[in-house]
């Protein structure tokens, strides 16, 4: 494509970083220099969140990072005759400028299939989507393939559900196709409950039509004429984009009655969640669409594919799973299955966050190693510090230590080491992240989100949380670790849904891989990562303190003593360990230290 234009990304992350203001300023400035004809195209988020807001110049593919409205005049001028690129806004890696988008290692090492359109296509324009081949797969299916042929193609692709559990998508569709029912439904699970994941959000915001197309194809394949997209309550921008996309697709004849003149009818509705993690579970999700509390159906329960929404056969898949369908239809099952491992085909998508240099969305072939994702693409921990753990699968997953960095990311390999693929959260942790605190954090989450039906889940999570809290507060006892292991087994066995069954995973994996840290908390009353307030202390290094007094001014409880220009001392009995003094101490002195355990009495 040779048109000269600016691309500017507009995902939630980009907008909060100021992308809209930058776009407006660019348009104004272009007009001022007589280039009003150059388009400023709004696109989905290209995923390198760290650099937001990002501006890309086509056709050269130059990328400007962390652009602010004040930069607009210079950017506009760079396109005037004789204008030069604005080098100071280039992305820099190890101090060296990388001017072109395509050369940035973060992108170069990825394999973007599902996210291909994110960052290049305007998510608010169906014409844009069609221009890059959108709805060709739907057309192909409706005009040339039987229902069974579609199901077979999906089966051959080896696609497994990307919502976390990895159930074979083709088999699910086949079961729904075979099920008898006057009405059938297709539901897209966009609940994205993992509190550290935003992959589904980015796809819905950045390329909504690819999800709609996948759903319509599923509708045809199983014989459903109605679909629901269940979107998490906290995703207002995704809902707006979906509404727009559904309306436009209907106007273009890709949704609604008699699609593309073939007689196939498929109508889509959006259902907004109301803030309950458990509603990501299939039966709880359908219950809440029906207007009930979102609780998983008791066992034994019929399969969703046979009796799901309104007791009708229902196909329920994750956002990413639907987004993969058009690729399988367009390029063929073999093309899709060429990526990945023997038992996990296609690509894996993660939102890489935490203590990592390059935060953002990442798509790699299944089977890439954690090291490739976290170190090579993610750039490791900022400042070259060591990695301590990698968390995947959110509250249902686990923490893996750095010596497992060569584990491939696929459904089976991650499960084998006590974690799981999950729906996309990948959080990097360094030496300053406490593993007991992380286990407590996820248990707190599961306790709050337990629907309360199963006594072992309801009460077991409370008991596990209180044990973990006691350990982090310095009240841990010998035997607590065994108690946690015992409770884990009981909760996992006594729960009817995945929430309870997997709630112990973060505890189990941290005990398995970081048992010494639990022991330090219990036996030595020290938090090695220096996170747990009751098990750390603050201390002013007499060698480095210059007596500037900034820390004592900041201390809310007057615990810091010392005359001006004299060495300051913290009164350990008064100190509430809020940590404000660390921030207050100027970086060039860095005299306030956070230490594991108690400071020796006379320090």
């Amino acid at each position, binding site marked *: 494509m040779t048109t000269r234009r600016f691309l500017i990304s507009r995902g939630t*992350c980009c907008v909060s970083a100021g992308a809209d203001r930058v776009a407006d300023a660019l348009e104004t400035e272009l007009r001022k220099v007589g280039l009003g004809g150059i388009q400023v195209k709004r696109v989905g988020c290209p995923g390198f969140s760290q650099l937001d807001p990002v501006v890309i110049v086509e056709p050269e593919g130059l990328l400007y990072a962390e652009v602010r409205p004040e930069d607009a005049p210079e950017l506009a001028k760079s396109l005037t005759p004789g204008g030069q690129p604005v080098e100071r806004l280039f992305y820099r890696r190890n101090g060296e400028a990388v001017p072109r988008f395509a050369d940035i290692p973060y992108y170069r090492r990825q394999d973007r299939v599902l996210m291909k359109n994110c960052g290049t296509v305007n998510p608010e324009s169906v014409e844009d989507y069609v221009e890059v081949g959108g709805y060709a797969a739907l057309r192909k299916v409706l005009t040339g393939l039987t229902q069974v042929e579609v199901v077979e193609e999906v089966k051959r692709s080896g696609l497994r559900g990307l919502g976390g559990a990895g159930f074979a998508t083709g088999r699910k569709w086949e079961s729904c196709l075979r099920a008898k029912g006057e009405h059938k439904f297709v539901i897209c699970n966009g609940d994205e409950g993992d509190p*550290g994941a*935003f992959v589904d959000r980015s796809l819905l915001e950045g390329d909504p039509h690819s999800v709609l197309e996948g759903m319509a194809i599923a509708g045809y394949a199983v014989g459903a004429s109605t679909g629901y997209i269940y979107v998490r309550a*906290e995703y207002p921008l995704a809902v707006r984009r979906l509404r727009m996309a559904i309306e436009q697709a209907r106007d273009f004849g890709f949704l609604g009655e008699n699609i593309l003149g073939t007689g196939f009818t498929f109508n889509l509705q959006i259902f907004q969640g*109301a803030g*309950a993690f458990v509603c990501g579970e299939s039966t709880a999700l359908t219950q809440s669409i029906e*207007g009930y*509390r979102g609780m998983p159906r008791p066992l034994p329960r019929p399969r969703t594919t046979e009796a799901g929404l309104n007791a009708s056969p229902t196909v329920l898949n994750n956002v990413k799973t639907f987004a993969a369908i058009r690729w399988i239809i367009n390029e063929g099952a073999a093309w899709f299955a060429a990526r990945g491992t023997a038992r996990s085909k296609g690509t894996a998508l993660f939102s890489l966050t935490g203590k990592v240099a390059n*935060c953002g969305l990442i798509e790699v072939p299944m089977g890439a190693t954690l090291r490739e994702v976290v170190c090579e693409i993610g750039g490791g921990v900022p400042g070259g510090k060591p990695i301590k753990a990698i968390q995947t699968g959110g509250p249902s997953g686990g923490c893996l230590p750095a010596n497992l960095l060569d584990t491939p990311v696929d459904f089976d390999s991650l499960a084998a080491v006590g974690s799981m693929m999950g729906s996309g959260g990948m959080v990097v942790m360094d030496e300053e992240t406490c593993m007991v605190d992380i286990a407590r954090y996820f248990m707190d989450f599961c306790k709050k989100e337990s629907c309360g039906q199963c006594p072992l889940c309801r009460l077991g999570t409370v008991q596990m949380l209180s044990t973990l809290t006691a350990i982090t507060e310095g009240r841990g006892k010998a035997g607590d670790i065994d108690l946690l292991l015992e409770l884990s087994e009981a909760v996992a066995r006594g729960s009817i849904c995945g929430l309870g069954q997997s709630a112990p995973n973060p505890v189990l994996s941290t005990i398995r891989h970081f048992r010494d840290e639990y022991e330090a908390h219990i036996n030595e009353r020290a938090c090695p990562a220096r996170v747990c307030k009751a098990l750390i202390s603050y201390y002013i290094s007499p060698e480095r303190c210059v007596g500037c007094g900034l820390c004592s001014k900041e201390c809310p409880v007057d615990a810091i003593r010392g005359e001006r220009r004299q060495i300051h001392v913290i009164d350990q009995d008064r100190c509430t360990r809020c940590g404000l003094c660390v921030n207050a101490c100027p970086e060039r002195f860095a005299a306030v230290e956070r230490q594991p355990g108690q400071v020796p009495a006379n320090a």
Partner: protein
Amino acid sequence: MSEEQLARLREILAAHEGKRGSLIPILQDVQSALGYLPEAAMPHIARHTGVSAGQVYGVAGFFAQFHLKPRGRKVVSVCKGTACHVQGATRVMERLEEHLGIKEGETTPDGEYTLESVACVGCCALAPCVVVNNDDVHGRLDPHAAVAVLAKDK
């Protein structure tokens, strides 16, 4: 409920089919129009959807999104997603609790601020984040900067 609130409620009910499946969308619309779910609205909603008032309460109470009491003019939500937690969200929350003199989930007596937590707002690269009134995201905060956000917002 004031006359005005009642009128809004009637409009919302009229816009939804009278069936059980409309219950959650109705509760969502009422809450976004009135800011919370007034007790007096429940029987109306129950009648319209054909379920008992008790069941309406049951559903409203189950989901975290619904509030049965009015909230502050400014709702300050501290992100407690995993990325924000790892980057120090707990200390941000503690500092804001101390500054506002309320606990998480409470509203200041003057009705100005409600302090809440939210799970991942999708801006993990900016962690830790605080969101004011649902759409104004402030990122890369430390406890100090979080308090400054409120001051700026006055």
